[in-house]
């Protein structure tokens, strides 16, 4: 019975199925889970207690910190570099701690998303309306009951959506939200959840998002200063999900069906004297996944997941230079994924996990000469965790086997590797929430299909790109000292190495190719602070801040012109902060993100510098209760000082704008 309650509590608290898996670890007692249940402004306790650096933003934090969209959420996380091509329709990818974005896994409701073609996931498709929590692990995940794939990336971002609730009684809930913003942005969202009794429940959500996205910007061309607009930038996206679950004594079975469709115009980079763009991109993604989790005995638990994923992208451009006047590149990716994990708890404080994954990916296209590459990935992990009152030690070894093939041509090299990871957390004083942690992780990424096969560009002889990460951190958490509530402070220093970095080099004047050339070393520091200042019985101030220092040095060869310079697009300093005044009238948030100057290339040439910026915003929100209905209103002012800046060169970001949303919950 206690198990059952634990299970229910867990699902209520952490909708992510995999995070929920931590509940099976006896070390994660109910008392440790409870703070999540009662979350208001309290941080996820693992932020300080985790043996590896991890930061969580849940749906409550999103509101309290005035986070406006997923790219803003990314900017509030330490060590994260966001690449944002601007506005609602612009592509957004993240890289963590000076490693390329291909090293960051995006895990959606427990299963890693894949893009075998580019190796990068565009985060712009995940709307915060449907996010219950975001957790970033810089390095290893310190949970062990996970699919093997969870260990196969240098860092991972876990996105958890709102899933079906689990209650024994029948109930139904409905959430509807409408957001309207400048430049014809509107985004209706609806979510329902129903418990049918006998352990059955289901939920679903749907959203549509439109934006004309034609925001103005200032173009400076020598002495010529003009006010322009982003033309050809509109998008229409919709997305729907259906979830079902069944809880029984045997365990929990959860199913999900997902569909996403986005048709957007691409404004392209800002080019002097040209305003026209005819580029268009249509992306569609469908996946279905089935997940089982259950406890076979008091010592053995099982986790199994199967997924099928289908995604397409169709890029079209109209220009007389193309054969027939149009370019029409159509790509289809398919993925079949299966994973099983067994958790064994021989005695109190010790847990062991064995996980095995198999993934099959392929890429087909309408392009002439396309070779239809595919890849079989076999991953296995063996992990052990020991926890006592003072010490947590986690070790994991991953064995990866990647087998490449192609239906109509030569396939890339196969690869197999052993990848170890070790992390330790130590709590020196039992009465104080003070922790010392250290971790090491070695991992690599396979060449993407673009890198291996792209016509006149790819190379099938590439080796994997390897990373080593070393982290040392001090953390502190307390539920309260005098007028301070829920204080969490983390400070992590790290050193990362990249070897066999995959880079494009010109083979001659006309042809470029990919090769393993670069070495990079990154020294960095991530500091975070979250706290609550109680001013009065009904008034409090919430404070949240991050600071990151990243010194990413190319170290390929002293003869190269980029030796020991700063890697392209990585700022030396970046940070974020928010201050929230909670009060009985209307809650107020002021927030900012700031990034120092970056260079477009690793040579750091003077003309190629992109100036730093600070983007400041204001949000007000208020909840009303009318009988059984909660109405939540929110108003945002974005880029308050109308700062013109770029994250990616030639892709200006929007200036000052507003956004209003009203949410109704039954």
């Amino acid at each position, binding site marked *: 019975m206690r198990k059952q309650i634990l299970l229910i509590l867990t699902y209520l608290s952490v909708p992510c199925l995999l995070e929920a898996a931590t509940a099976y670890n006896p070390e994660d007692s109910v008392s440790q889970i409870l703070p999540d249940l009662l979350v208001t402004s309290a941080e996820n306790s693992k932020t300080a207690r985790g043996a590896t650096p991890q930061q969580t933003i849940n749906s409550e934090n999103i509101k309290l910190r005035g986070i406006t969209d997923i790219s803003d959420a990314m900017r509030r996380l330490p060590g994260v570099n966001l690449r944002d091509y601007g506005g609602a329709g612009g592509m957004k990818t993240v890289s963590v701690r000076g490693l390329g974005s291909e090293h960051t896994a995006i895990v959606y409701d427990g299963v890693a998303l894949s893009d075998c073609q580019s190796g990068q996931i565009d985060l712009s498709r995940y709307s915060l309306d449907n996010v219950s929590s975001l957790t970033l692990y810089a390095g290893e995940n310190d949970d062990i009951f996970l699919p093997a794939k969870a260990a196969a990336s240098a860092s991972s971002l876990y996105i958890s959506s709102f899933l079906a609730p689990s209650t024994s009684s029948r109930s139904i809930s409905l959430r509807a939200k409408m957001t309207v913003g400048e430049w014809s942005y509107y985004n209706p969202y609806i979510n329902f959840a129903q418990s049918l009794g006998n352990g059955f429940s289901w939920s679903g959500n749907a959203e549509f998002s439109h934006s004309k996205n034609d925001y103005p910007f200032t173009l400076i*061309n*020598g*002495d*010529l200063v003009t006010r322009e607009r982003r033309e050809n930038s509109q998008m229409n996206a919709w997305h729907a999900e259906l979830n079902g679950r069944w809880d029984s004594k045997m365990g929990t079975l959860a199913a999900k069906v997902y569909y996403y469709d986005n048709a957007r115009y691409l404004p392209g*980079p800002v*080019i*002097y*004297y*040209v*305003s*026209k763009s005819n580029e268009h991109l249509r992306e569609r993604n469908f996946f279905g996944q089935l997940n089982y989790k259950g406890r076979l005995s008091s010592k053995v638990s099982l986790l199994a997941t199967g997924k099928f994923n289908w995604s397409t992208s169709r890029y079209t451009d109209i*220009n*007389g*230079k*193309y*054969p027939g006047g149009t*370019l029409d590149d159509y790509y289809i990716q398919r993925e079949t994924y299966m994973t099983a994990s067994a958790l064994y708890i021989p005695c109190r404080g010790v847990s062991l996990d064995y996980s095995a994954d198999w993934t099959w990916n392929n890429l087909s296209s309408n*392009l*002439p*000469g396309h070779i239809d590459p595919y890849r079989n990935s076999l991953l296995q992990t063996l992990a052990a965790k020991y926890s006592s009152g003072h010490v947590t030690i986690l070790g994991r070894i991953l064995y990866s086997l990647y087998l490449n093939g192609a239906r109509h041509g030569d396939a890339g090299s196969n690869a197999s590797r052993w990848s170890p990871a070790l992390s330790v957390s130590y709590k020196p004083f039992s009465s104080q929430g003070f922790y010392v942690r250290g971790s090491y992780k070695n991992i690599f990424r396979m060449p993407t299909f673009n890198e291996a096969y792209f*016509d*006149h560009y790819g190379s099938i002889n590439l080796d994997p790109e390897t990373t080593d990460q070393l982290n040392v951190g001090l953390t502190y958490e307390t539920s309260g000292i005098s007028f301070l509530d829920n204080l969490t402070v983390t400070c992590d220093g790290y050193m990362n190495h990249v070897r066999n970095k995959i880079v494009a*080099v*010109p*083979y*001659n*004047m*006309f*042809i470029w190719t990919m090769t393993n*050339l670069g070495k990079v070393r990154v020294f960095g520091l991530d500091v975070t602070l979250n706290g609550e200042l109680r001013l009065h019985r009904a008034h409090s101030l919430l404070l949240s801040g991050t600071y990151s220092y990243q010194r990413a040095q190319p170290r*390929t*060869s002293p*003869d*190269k*012109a*980029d030796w020991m310079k700063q890697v392209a697009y990585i700022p030396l300093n970046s940070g974020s902060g928010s201050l929230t005044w909670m009060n009985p009238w209307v809650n107020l948030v002021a927030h900012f993100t700031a990034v120092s100057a970056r260079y*477009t*290339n690793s*040579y750091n*040439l003077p*003309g*190629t*510098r*992109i100036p730093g910026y600070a983007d400041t915003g204001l949000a007000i929100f208020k909840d009303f209760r009318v009988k059984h209905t909660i109405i939540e209103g929110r108003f945002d002012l974005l880029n308050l000082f109308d700062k013109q800046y770029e994250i990616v*060169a*030639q892709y200006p970001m929007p200036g000052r704008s507003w956004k209003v949303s009203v949410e109704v919950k039954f």
Partner: protein
Amino acid sequence: MKKHYLYAMSLALVSMLGACSNDDEPNDNGGTGEPDETAYADVAYILNQGNMGQKVEGRLSVLDENRQELSSGVFQAVNKRSLGDTPQCGIAYGSKIYVGVYVSNTIEIIDRNTYKSIKQISLENSDKGTQPRSMVAKNGKVYVSMYDGYVARLDTLSMELDASVKVGPNPENIEIFNNRIYVPNSDGMNYKVGYGETASVVTLEPFAVEETIKVPLNPNKFMTDGTNLFLLSMGNYGDVDAEVYKMVEKVNDKGEKEIGFNSIAKATLAAVGAGKIYMVNAPYGGTVSYSRYDIASGTTREMKCDEVSYPSGIGVDAENGTLLISAMPLDGGYASYVLPGTLCEYDLNGLYRKTYNIGSGPAVIFF
């Protein structure tokens, strides 16, 4: 004859003279239809393509007639605005310089003495072709090949595009020979299916396609010494090498005359001048070599151009007696499209004279 004429004169005086002879375009040189070039110093123009994705602007650089000083970015300095993204071609003709900017989709008409922009023609909404690739001039007209499959005609007096003809796909470097424009139809955007194997022959009067001839794979640049026509074809960067050919008239089995192309040498860059073809061969994955081919005797001589780091453009000026090869710097063994490049000067026998520092991506040289 046009060189050394203004040697000692100051730039200011040069501009004044230039201003006086501003109406020199057609028919002011004894009825030949060609403008008088003697009034202009024999400078060399170099286009730096830059790298706009990394915020490196395209530039027009000028090497003075004494081959002493290289002025980088003269357009930007005078006009206080950018030349644009990826300058692709240029020609100095009469009192003006014409520069085609490929990505910015413009033709800049620039005063030859002051470098002031006289007119910027935007091709963005042009019905006469867009995205300029190369330029030639004759009888007061500048002809521009456009990558969307046109050759457009620019009248130098009205400074308007007054006509254009549809040619094959993705035309590259055109040349005038026997009062016809030879247009290499590279079909470069269709490379996944295969590069082009045709050239369009366009008569000047009337301005129309006369015929389409078969040429070696992936034609890139027609060149002439006045009596012969040469063609550089790039092959497929695989089993078909880039080579320079000479156009010949052959008699086929049926006794009919037809056009053929005889291979001269393997080359990836070439320029014709002073009775020779100067060639650079930087094959896919191979070592770089330099040679000059004597058109009259048909002999080829190797040249040593060790000063060139990675060749990106070539130009020969017979009157001034200079051979210029632009280069990208090597970084870690590979050419850098971002780091500033160099311009190496040789005499017509390939004897090294000097190296100039120049902006990134120097690819086009004209005189």
